[in-house]
């Protein structure tokens, strides 16, 4: 069966520090991978998506970047965090079509102080 792992679960970082969040998928190959951010108790904002190794599409201009160094690995990074980067970050995967819905990871709660 397919599983998605996301870590760390919580993170407190000072303003100006770097960030690296990792997401890996098991049990499937060539998934579409996504990074979402969610403000407290609210809807999801798509940040990046990837349809293959090295292929990254950005949805929102911001302080963040994403990379896909391996087929089932998706990384969200920042060189210098801002207070506004605080939020709940979710990784998700799906196969080619979206009708089967996303499978989300358990998320990372990032607090920038």
């Amino acid at each position, binding site marked *: 069966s397919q599983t998605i792992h996301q870590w760390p679960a919580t993170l407190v970082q000072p303003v100006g520090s770097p960030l690296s969040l990792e997401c890996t998928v098991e049990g499937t190959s060539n998934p579409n991978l996504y990074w979402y951010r969610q403000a407290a*108790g*609210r*809807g*999801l*904002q*798509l940040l990046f*998506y990837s349809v293959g190794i090295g292929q990254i599409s950005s*949805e929102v201009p911001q302080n963040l970047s994403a990379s896909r160094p391996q087929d089932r690995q998706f990384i969200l990074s920042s060189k210098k965090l801002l207070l506004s980067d605080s939020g709940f970050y*979710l990784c*998700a995967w799906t196969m*080619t*079509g*979206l*009708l*089967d*819905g*996303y*499978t*989300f*990871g*358990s*998320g990372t*709660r990032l607090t920038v102080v």
Partner: protein
Amino acid sequence: TQLLEQSPQFLSIQEGENLTVYCNSSSVFSSLQWYRQEPGEGPVLLVTVVTGGEVKKLKRLTFQFGDARKDSSLHITAAQPGDTGLYLCAGLKTSYDKVIFGPGTSLSVIP
């Protein structure tokens, strides 16, 4: 801009009551999904509706897709504390398009 609105924003009810939450848009979607998210977790897909007027039932949950494919509703019968969570609707223009999420309805079922 494609927007999905959800109402109510917050809902607190007693165990055993019935409730309906709504998802509305001015845009037409080819399909619509409902997710439930528990605190500190990622959303989990409940259902996908693809046909205008379609009704799907999942135990005590009934989902309906509007005839014009611009709106959807979720009805819960005899709510239980385990139904507590954030209910998100998500619209798809095509099966290969990106998903547009609504802001969610936060449901609290009090024992």
